[in-house]
């Protein structure tokens, strides 16, 4: 019986980290909404998560492998992504677009956190009160 699913808990935890990183990036975009010449940054969440998944799969398949330090290889790629045409000052931040991304990011973050909480609660139950 697979109560202790380490892989999914690790994945959920890493997803939470990545969402916070993206939140930081988006915060920087919004703070620089009026900075001349500034272009908004974005990061590829799925790609970073995929690397983490592969890292975990590697760790699980062969116990003889050294434990994979997943964070080292699965850092997200950050790139510039203008929201629209630059104004006179060269700024390309679209405030509405960035705020939407921030909110969407937060919802994903909180849902992932809720799933993690549920997994941990199941673990705790199986280990604790479930026993006699």
């Amino acid at each position, binding site marked *: *019986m*697979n*109560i202790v*699913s380490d*892989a*999914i808990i690790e*994945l*959920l935890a890493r*997803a939470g980290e990545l969402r916070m990183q993206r939140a930081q990036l988006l915060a920087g975009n919004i703070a620089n909404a009026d900075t001349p010449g500034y272009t908004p940054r974005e990061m590829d969440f*799925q790609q970073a*998560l995929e690397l983490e*998944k592969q890292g975990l799969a590697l760790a699980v398949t062969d116990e003889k492998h050294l434990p994979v330090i997943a964070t080292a290889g699965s850092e997200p790629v950050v790139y510039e992504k203008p929201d629209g045409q630059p104004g006179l000052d060269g700024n390309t931040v679209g405030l509405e677009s960035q705020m939407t991304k921030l909110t969407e990011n937060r*919802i994903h973050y909180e*849902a*992932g956190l*809720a*799933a993690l909480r*549920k*997994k941990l*609660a*199941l673990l705790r*139950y*199986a280990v604790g009160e*479930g026993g*006699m």
Partner: protein
Amino acid sequence: MVIKPAEFPTIDRIDLPLSREVNPAGVAEQPGFDELLGRALEKLDGTLKAGDAAAAGFLQGKVDIQQMALALEKADISLRFMMHVRNRVVEAYKEISRMNI
């Protein structure tokens, strides 16, 4: 254990659809308790795995929040129910072993 209506033994048929053994008297035997328990455990494992898969799918953007929430909740209920059944079984076993024969 979720028992589907088709599996309820009816009065005119003593044999269960999944039963495999038929004794010479013509009365079919019910599946053994261990078989029923085994099936229930398999179902539980399936439910737990489905919950994990839903969470992973959500992270990848393939599964909705509601679908994931439902799958995890099902896993939760299944686990708690199985624990409950297990506790009852152990209780029953203890009860029986206490009997003086």
